[in-house]
């Protein structure tokens, strides 16, 4: 039997990488899924993937939105509720990423952008979704954190504080909304994400060393490994788990990085940036 039959899920940043894996996995588990991204062109690749899942096309809806703009991302929640008759699950996966810079050089605008697309986006979707979840007798919210928050990754202070904020938000949401049976958790992935794949094309040797160093000797597959763990948190099995941060990372968080720091001033999507456990 499918695990999310009759459920309505929202996935932000759903056209690539981990978000894409979650959308596809949830559709296969019977959920209706509204997913968004900033760039509508990125959805073109999703169409055949969704068409390949039997009966999924009618349960999937793409909505173009910038998660860093309150009206837009809250609009996604309201549209999803209207389309599918409610909201049960919100996966706050999207995150805008600024170039790596030393703290003393990082412009305020980078902090503002990273916080808006990471922390505020998680806050805004939660605020918008809560009334719908209360109507349905409960719900699940999943926020996203990162090893970089734990490690204090150099030159990514904006990213690290944003992810740490998501963890703290998760705990407070869990405390405040548990009485409504709304369960809130945070996940930390080590995923073979879109950004990591791009990064690996230019840093193959380093990435192979990183992967060897992970206890499970690989980056997580977005749909099988990362979305699998998220599915556990939003399915029946996760019904008593709330306020936690769970590492879906093959044990990467337990071991020391394979290589040292990345350099300041690089764009982590295209540059020579080096990460302990991958770029999400």
């Amino acid at each position, binding site marked *: *039997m*499918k*695990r*999310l*039959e*009759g*459920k309505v899920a929202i996935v932000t940043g759903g056209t690539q990488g981990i978000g894409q894996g979650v959308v596809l996995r949830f559709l296969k588990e019977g959920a209706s899924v509204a997913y968004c991204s900033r760039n509508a062109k990125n959805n073109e690749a999703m169409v055949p993937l969704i068409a390949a899942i039997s009966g999924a096309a009618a349960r999937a809806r793409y909505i173009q939105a910038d998660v860093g703009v309150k009206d837009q991302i809250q609009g996604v929640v309201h549209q999803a509720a209207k389309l599918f008759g409610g909201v*049960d699950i919100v996966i706050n996966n999207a995150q805008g990423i600024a170039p790596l810079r030393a703290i003393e050089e990082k412009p305020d605008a980078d902090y503002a952008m990273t916080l808006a697309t990471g922390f505020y986006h998680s806050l805004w979707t939660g605020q918008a979704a809560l009334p719908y979840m209360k109507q349905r*007798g*409960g*719900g*699940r919210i999943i926020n996203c954190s990162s090893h970089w928050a734990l490690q204090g990754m150099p030159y990514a202070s904006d990213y690290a504080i944003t992810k740490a904020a998501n963890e703290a938000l998760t*705990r407070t949401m*869990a*405390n405040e*909304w*548990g*009485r*409504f*049976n709304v*369960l809130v958790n945070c996940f930390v992935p*080590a995923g073979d994400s879109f950004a990591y794949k791009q990064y690996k094309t230019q840093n193959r040797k380093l990435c192979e060393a990183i992967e060897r160093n*992970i*206890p*499970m*000797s690989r980056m*997580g597959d977005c749909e*099988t*490994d*990362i979305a*699998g*763990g998220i*599915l*556990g*948190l939003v*399915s*029946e*099995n*996760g*019904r*008593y*788990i*709330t*306020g*936690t941060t*769970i*590492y*879906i*990372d*093959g*044990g990467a*968080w*337990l*071991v020391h990085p394979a290589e040292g720091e990345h350099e300041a001033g690089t764009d982590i999507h295209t540059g020579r940036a080096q990460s302990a456990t991958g770029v999400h």
Partner: protein
Amino acid sequence: MRLALTSTPAAPNQRRAFTEKMAMDQLKGKVAAVTGPAGSTGRGIALRFAREGAKIALIDRDAAKCDALVKEIQTAGGTATFIRADVAAQGDAQRAIDAAASEYGRLDVLVNSNWVLRSFMPLLEKPEEDFKASMNAVFFGTLRAMRAAVPHMRKVGGGRIINVAAPYGYTSFHNIADAVSTDWSLQGLTRAAAVEWGKYQILTNLLVPALLDIPEFQQYRADNPVYVDGLIKQMPLRRLGDPVEDLGGAALLLASDEGCFITGQPIFSDGGQHLNTAAFKPRARQA
């Protein structure tokens, strides 16, 4: 067996599952060994795994309780067998795990639920024997069962090990220093196994419960009704955990395809209770 929540107003949807429908075959074809199933946590997980299609080997000293559990599982259409053993005794865990794998032809999941609470007593007064008993049964029993399971799991390309902490054994609590110390040794063992056995696709986690609706907790609750009701009111989910549905559900997450990339961690299946550790103001009291 369920405790009535008398003085705590029930959350409006406390017993209604988030999803009414339930997959019933998440462990189809798998074999799970459970050490300590005479206790309520191991029992709940065994019942849940059996419902999901796993064949269950119950490893314990307590024949009466386990025979009854085997019957209960079989009556519900499941498959289970009892292997009498004391995992704390040298050699017994190895024999029992080998027997479990031999009985059903493979071993995929090992659940260690051996927590013991011999006394509620302040750290200054607690006898060393309690610490020794706890370390021997819980830490060494778990260690021996885990090592015995690895060759069997490698034969089938991987496995899952779920070590179950005592309620509050991870977050800590007054008067159970033996359980807390032992559970942190279990956390260390869990991490070390995760790092070393990941390459065999063997995943190891620590499952952490808090307030469960189980007989072991009923006397404590009866002795401390106001305090326990206060704890429940602090919990995000405001209800006691059910050993089969709540704790068993989290164990299932870790044992099924959902948990295929999660290892080395404490997983709190506690209704969010761990968040409120800082707020605890318990009175020292003996059970």
